[in-house]
């Protein structure tokens, strides 16, 4: 795909999907804590959304950020408009604005954001040391 093709793919995805999430990884297997929280908020509201994993090609993110003027991932679009990244989406989730925007019922059970994975810290060590 050329850069132009990637850009028009992204433009169409935003235009054709009422709720469109660009993320690292996929909704059932997010590859980043920020994407996980954002997808989790949408899941908690039970809304249908399309998602696109930006990781397979670095140009997806370049073209997306060029288009939206937003430097980070995830990015949530509703009705063709950028709503925000994970901080804004989580603030709006907690205040009920997100449910209102999406015409969803606020969840009965409070949604616990997924904890950020702890960085794995292991002592320096060799595996399979050769004698």
């Amino acid at each position, binding site marked *: 795909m050329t850069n132009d093709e990637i850009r028009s793919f992204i433009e169409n995805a935003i235009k054709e999907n009422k709720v469109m999430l660009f993320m690292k990884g996929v909704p059932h297997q997010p590859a980043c804590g920020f994407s996980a929280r954002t997808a989790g908020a949408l899941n908690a509201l039970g809304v249908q959304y399309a998602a696109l994993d930006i990781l397979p090609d670095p140009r997806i993110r370049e073209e997306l950020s060029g288009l939206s003027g*937003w430097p980070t991932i995830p990015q949530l679009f509703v009705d063709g408009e950028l709503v925000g990244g*994970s901080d*804004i989406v989580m603030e709006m989730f907690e205040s009920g604005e997100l449910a209102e925007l999406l015409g969803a019922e606020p969840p009965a059970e409070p949604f616990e954001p997924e904890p950020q994975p702890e960085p794995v810290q292991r002592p320096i060590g060799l595996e399979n040391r050769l004698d």
Partner: protein
Amino acid sequence: MPQASELEQRIATALPGARVNVEDLTGGGDHFRAEIVSDRFEGLSRIEQHRLVYDVFGDDIGGAIHALSIKTSTPGATA
């Protein structure tokens, strides 16, 4: 590797009069959280408020600064 204090200073310079607090979330100099109270945010949408902050760092976002979590508010609306 950027320091939290350096980020604080850059935001404070770009948004004079703002109250800025930046935390290094991992201690590794790549995941930061910034809380900013500024009257410059008055009348702006959240998107516009966050953009003002992102603009301070330009290409460093996603580069040297891997992740910057932002919380913005105006002096009148501080929780």
